[in-house]
């Protein structure tokens, strides 16, 4: 499965939990890509990093990026845009744009800084030109989902939340993979339906 397909699958799955049913992370990625491509002629693609929460994810996206994970991005320029997280809004999001031509983002950064009244830290120019294609740890999104569903199953079965979390970690190495495997067994023990975890 290509990187872009994995990303689209993970984003579609994440979109299912958004408040407004018309909200769609894939559509947002497409919209942003179209706007960025029109703004910078040598635009290649972007990297998204979402962090400072229980789960950190990172992935690249763009039709002009190399298809395979780990391949260096032939970027001559980059622009990072950061949306700081908070208790109300959620985790910090960083979007890094890549372009082939050196200096490609100078004007865009100046305009974005002027539009927001920020002179410095929301935008960082040319600090990520050595990036590589990644689907990062999108699998963690799927594993965390299984773990949280298993916690819900155990709570419904009579355990308190802390007991449920302890049930998933007792006697094992407490790696994400171990907890995920134990959680999957909890879900597999449910009647009628197997777990339909997202494949990222």
């Amino acid at each position, binding site marked *: 499965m290509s990187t872009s397909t994995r990303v689209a699958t993970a984003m579609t799955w*994440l*979109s299912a*939990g*958004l*408040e407004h049913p018309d*909200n769609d*992370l894939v559509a*947002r990625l*497409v*919209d*942003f*890509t*179209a*706007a*960025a*491509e*029109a*703004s*910078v*002629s040598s635009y290649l693609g972007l990297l998204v990093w*979402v962090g400072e*929460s*229980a789960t950190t*994810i990172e992935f690249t996206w763009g039709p002009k990026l190399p298809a395979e994970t780990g391949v260096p991005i032939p970027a001559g320029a980059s622009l990072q845009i950061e*949306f700081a997280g908070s208790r109300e*809004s*959620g*985790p910090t*999001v960083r*979007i890094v744009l890549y372009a082939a031509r050196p200096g490609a983002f100078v*004007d*865009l950064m*100046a*305009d*974005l800084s*002027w*539009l*927001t*009244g*920020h002179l410095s830290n929301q935008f960082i120019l040319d600090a990520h030109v050595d990036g590589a294609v990644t689907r990062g740890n999108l699998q963690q*999104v799927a594993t*965390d989902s299984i773990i*949280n*569903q*298993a*916690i*819900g*199953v*155990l*709570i*419904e*079965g009579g*355990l*308190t939340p802390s*007991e449920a979390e302890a049930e998933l970690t007792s006697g094992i190495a407490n790696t994400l993979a171990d907890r995920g495997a134990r959680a999957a067994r909890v*879900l597999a023990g*449910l009647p*009628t*339906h197997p777990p*339909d975890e997202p494949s990222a």
Partner: protein
Amino acid sequence: MTDGSRPHAAGEPVIPIAEAADFEGAEDLRASLGQLAGLVSDRLGLQDLLTSVATFAVGAIPGADGAGVTLLRVGGTGSRIEALAASAQFVSDIDQLQYETLQEGPCITAVMERRTVRSGSLGGEKMWPRFGPRVGRLGVHSALSLPLLLPPHQHGPDVGAVGAINVYARDKDVFTEHAAHLGELFAVPAAVAVHNAQVLATARSLATQLQEAMSSRPIIDQAIGVLRARAGISESEAMARLRGISQREHTKLATVASRLIQEATQRARARHTDQ
């Protein structure tokens, strides 16, 4: 936006101020471009920016009674309107007529043909045989539409129009060639400003939805687990039930999920107390 040759300091707006020698309307144009360059706000949303651009356009173009800005969604399988703004209600009414009712009018022509379009007598205008007379009956007789075009040397030759500025006047024959020229001078930096605002707006929209998805998903997944155990249903069926409750009760999905978890936890704690 620069012309590719003028360096600028960090934070300096890159919208060029017209440096042409004095000509009729030059002061108003410079004032409007200066206002465009001064649109600095921590929270200036796309809609507010477009409304401001429309208002400044009225100041820049002699004879204008009102103006509107249309922003198109760039790329994809066809253009569609992303946002609309107007300096006055009558402009909104005319643009609704143009885009929604008739799908005909000066902005549509300007965008499709990527050229400035002008009319001094809308009532008898052959270019728009349905739009013109209807707008004429509203008491508006002159129109000037300017496509918002990104500079091709920076943005590629095939981007097309990212939108348009529509300017209207109640009297006939208001917009001369000179007015059209001033409008074109205003439209160049306006195109880059509104498009880059759209870049920021789409980035913000992506980030906001990612933040929401990542922060609410853990509690939603736990609630899915509760429902799966209670009812023996699949993940997708459990999600559908949560969304159904959310819609019926007009309550946020995450709030419904949180309540389910709390109720299940209270039952679990009550069982512990009983034992």
